[in-house]
């Protein structure tokens, strides 16, 4: 029975993850179309039913599956094939540590709405994201092409640089919520500050949030930070890929957006917490209460988590389509000379404030 529950949780989380990935491609097409004053993909249909292009992701998927799977003769074959799977795998496993909601009680059983409740869950996600670099490096190297190598070099340099800022920006969060367990961090954010402000990370760690968000944007390797890809100059580390293998790289990009959104939501925007809602319903700061049954509360939590994640996915796509690319030196300056000092100042400031309030 326990194994069955775990299997159901894994299947649900993966289905959620992949469906959201598919529809982020649709969102990206539509959002870019709106920004560029176009209509966007709207021709894919089933029996003439268009539904504003909602079937487009499926058409894309079918197209990718039936393309030729080509390995260039000069590439090293094993590594060339391995790279996209590595890239995809390491981002796909991160979903295991994301808390979707609080405990669900069914028939006396407590089901934690999280696949893997590690006491170092935050580090698990960071570790898996940092291993994702190997997909980029190996793909660029195994293709034996100067442009792909250039792309993977840039990618490795960029990801290593921004990982430092990413890690340092989270130290403040770990200091405020003394835990690395994601469920405890979320549970802590259910309390209120001064009686009415939810104790979300954005209010306790505003600088931490800024640094984290910029560093995480750089980790997704999309436009303001898309040096490894650089569509208009070097085409990037996946130049020699086609069909489904290229599709895996593209899906990795979108899945990284979702993981970043999940992390931002969990650490800085209360995760599955709804403001002023505790396990038995709403307790408004102006005195009213609205008691709800357990199932409805869990439903609210899942809905809140999803809404927050959708919002950050939308925001990241908006940023991707509105800002031009950084130059390489600007990128490195931003990482090493702005974000890292800012995160260090944030750590010291957090320490001082915590010492005073103690």
């Amino acid at each position, binding site marked *: 029975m326990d194994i069955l529950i775990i299997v159901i949780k894994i299947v649900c989380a993966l289905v959620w993850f992949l469906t959201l990935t598919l529809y982020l491609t649709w969102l990206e097409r539509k959002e870019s179309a709106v920004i560029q004053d176009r209509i966007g993909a709207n021709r894919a249909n089933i029996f003439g039913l268009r539904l504003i292009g909602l079937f487009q992701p499926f058409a894309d998927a079918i197209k990718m599956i039936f393309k030729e799977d080509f390995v260039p003769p000069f590439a090293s074959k094993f590594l060339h094939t391995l790279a996209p799977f590595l890239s995809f795998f390491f981002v796909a496993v991160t979903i295991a540590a994301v808390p979707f909601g609080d405990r669900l009680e069914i028939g006396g059983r407590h089901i934690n709405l999280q696949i893997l409740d590690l006491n*170092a869950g935050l580090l698990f996600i960071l*570790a898996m994201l940092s*291993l994702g670099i190997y997909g980029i490096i190996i793909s660029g190297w195994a293709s034996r092409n100067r442009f792909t190598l250039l792309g993977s070099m840039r990618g490795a340099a960029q990801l*290593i640089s921004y990982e430092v800022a990413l890690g340092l920006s989270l130290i403040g969060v770990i200091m405020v919520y003394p835990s690395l367990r994601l469920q405890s961090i979320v549970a802590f954010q259910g309390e209120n500050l001064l009686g009415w402000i939810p104790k979300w990370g954005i209010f306790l760690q505003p600088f931490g949030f800024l640094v984290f968000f910029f560093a995480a944007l750089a980790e997704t390797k999309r436009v303001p930070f898309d040096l490894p890809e650089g569509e208009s100059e070097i085409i990037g580390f996946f130049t020699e890929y086609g069909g489904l293998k290229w599709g895996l790289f593209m899906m990795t990009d979108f899945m990284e957006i979702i993981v970043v959104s999940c992390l931002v939501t969990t650490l800085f925007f209360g995760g599955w917490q709804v403001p002023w809602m505790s396990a038995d319903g709403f307790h408004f700061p102006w005195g009213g209460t609205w008691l709800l049954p357990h199932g409805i509360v869990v439903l609210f939590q899942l809905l809140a988590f999803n809404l927050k994640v959708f919002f950050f996915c939308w925001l990241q796509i908006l940023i991707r389509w509105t800002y031009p690319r950084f130059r390489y030196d600007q990128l490195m300056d931003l990482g090493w000379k702005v974000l890292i000092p800012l995160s260090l100042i944030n750590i010291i400031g957090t320490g001082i404030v915590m010492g005073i309030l103690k």
Partner: protein
Amino acid sequence: MGTLLFFLLGLLCVGSVLGMILSRNQAHNALLLVLSFASLGGLFGLLDAPFIAAVQIIIYAGAIMVLFIFVIMMVNLKEGIRPERKVWTIRLSAGLAVFLLIELGLAVKGTLASIRGEAGPAIGSPTELGRLLFTDYLYPFEITSILIIAALVGAIVLVKKKKDER
């Protein structure tokens, strides 16, 4: 299940290290070393120490080896170069290997003798580790960090261009 995973990960770890030693291609060497680090992380995870497992993967597999591979791919894109063979280097390395093996054997023997029963579950937790680092092992910790910073500064000074050289 735990024993099976342990042997799988152990086999992967030892196998990838062996492959690293035997392979001639520098890039493959580095990737195999990454694999061994990752499986070592898995072994830490099996020992109920997810914090150490995550740190092992983030630091070694995710950061240090990326820099290694970065340099290897930048410098050398050909198949591995045949190493020079000299009789005295083979003899010296064989002697050193035997010496290392004896040393490792003694270390393992000493460690096995001092273990009594199981370690507590808190031993690998971030709280316990942080407390030990900042109380009992504060001086070694600080000295190591000063050493690393000195090495970093030294490296930067060494590679920095002098102004008149430009």
